[in-house]
């Protein structure tokens, strides 16, 4: 048997919905695991990425840590795939992009009714938010995109199987969805 492909996954400014959709591949995960093995991923709890064949990144880039993680993935993954609406166009978090970040934080933590002694979180462990939320392709080179919110398990399965077989992945009607 040929060597298994190493796959890393992560969620940046995402909701883990795309990872749930990966799990939703269901019993086909078993034949998939004959072809791939996971490196860094919330599924393995490996904290840093080693050399990989495929990286799957969910979510856009909304803070400084997201930038570092995305660069780590780009450096280690031969093929980097943006998975889901947020990775592709920023998605829901990017709906703050036309607003000023300072006034967003003020409204959420200081002036929202019912907040007593509220303050804007400033723990040094918290990564600093970026001024705007960016789709992945604005930060690093992305090789493929799987659209959807989340992409269906069938779409992810079809995409990965095409890719592993060395074909240009195509989704087609019913599998290609932006919602």
């Amino acid at each position, binding site marked *: 048997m040929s060597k298994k492909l190493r796959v890393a996954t992560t969620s940046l400014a995402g909701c883990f919905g795309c990872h749930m959709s990966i799990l939703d591949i269901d019993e086909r995960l078993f034949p998939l695991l004959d072809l791939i093995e996971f490196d860094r991923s919330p599924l393995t709890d490996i904290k840093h990425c080693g050399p990989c064949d495929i990286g799957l990144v969910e979510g856009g880039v909304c803070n400084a840590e997201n930038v570092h993680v995305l660069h780590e993935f780009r450096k280690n993954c031969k093929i980097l795939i943006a998975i889901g609406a947020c990775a592709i*166009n920023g998605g829901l978090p990017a709906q703050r992009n*036309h607003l000023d970040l300072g006034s967003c934080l003020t409204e959420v933590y200081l002036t929202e009714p019912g907040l007593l002694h509220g303050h804007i979180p400033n723990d040094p462990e918290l990564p600093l938010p970026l001024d*705007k939320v960016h789709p992945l392709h*604005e930060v690093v080179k992305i090789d*493929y995109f799987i*659209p959807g919110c989340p992409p269906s398990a069938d779409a992810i399965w079809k995409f990965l199987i095409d890719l592993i077989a060395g074909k240009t992945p195509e989704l087609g*009607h019913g599998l290609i969805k932006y919602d």
Partner: protein
Amino acid sequence: MNDTFQLDGSTVPFEPGQTVMQAALAAGRYIPHLCYHPEFKPHGSCKLCTVKANGRTVASCTMPAETGLDVESEIEELNALRRSLVQMLFAEGNHFCPSCEKSGNCVLQALGYDLEVHATGFRHLYPDRPLDASHPDILLDFNRCILCELCVRASSEVDGKNVFALSGRGITKHLIVNAESGKLSDTNIALTDKAMQVCPVGVILPKRVGFSVPIGERRYDQRPISAQALDDAPRQTDSSGNCAACEGTP
């Protein structure tokens, strides 16, 4: 019938005065389009329907059909161009399909699906475009406007109301409402107007409809736009109800 032209190697008949787009749709041949609507005068602005006619790139919705014309449409060179146009429209506005109630009924989205557009690839502009929720029955979400002018054309040509217009130039071009206040509530637009039915994206929305038809059961969930557009196209039928111009298509 003597008047014919060639479309991707097959013969398409046409009536005098028809455009390449009209003749193609009537013959059951799909050419991707966005600002073209069979009931309105062609606008020729979105360029999705660009074809090569005798080697020259032209908008097929405005190009008059001519005998012997050699038209190419379904070629990778043109589809790559169409993908770029769709991508630029997505990058220019705020098109967040997961939270848009037009999703599944949206022409822009359906074209993206049909052309296998997986991502925009461009830098998103994220413009600031406030909503107009002033009207009791109608919401305007300018974030999704692609400036096709279908609402402008419908309101002036069919409704006779001139509720909408485009203002500004270049990147500052935008849809405006024809009222002193600029608010939709100060116009005489009605839910029954043609302008309410033609928006290809999710700008002009009747209130209190939302997701009453669930995602997954919508227009372009059922069939791709290339099939749907042919169903909608006006056809000449023969006495038995079959499409007179179609070659082998029902």
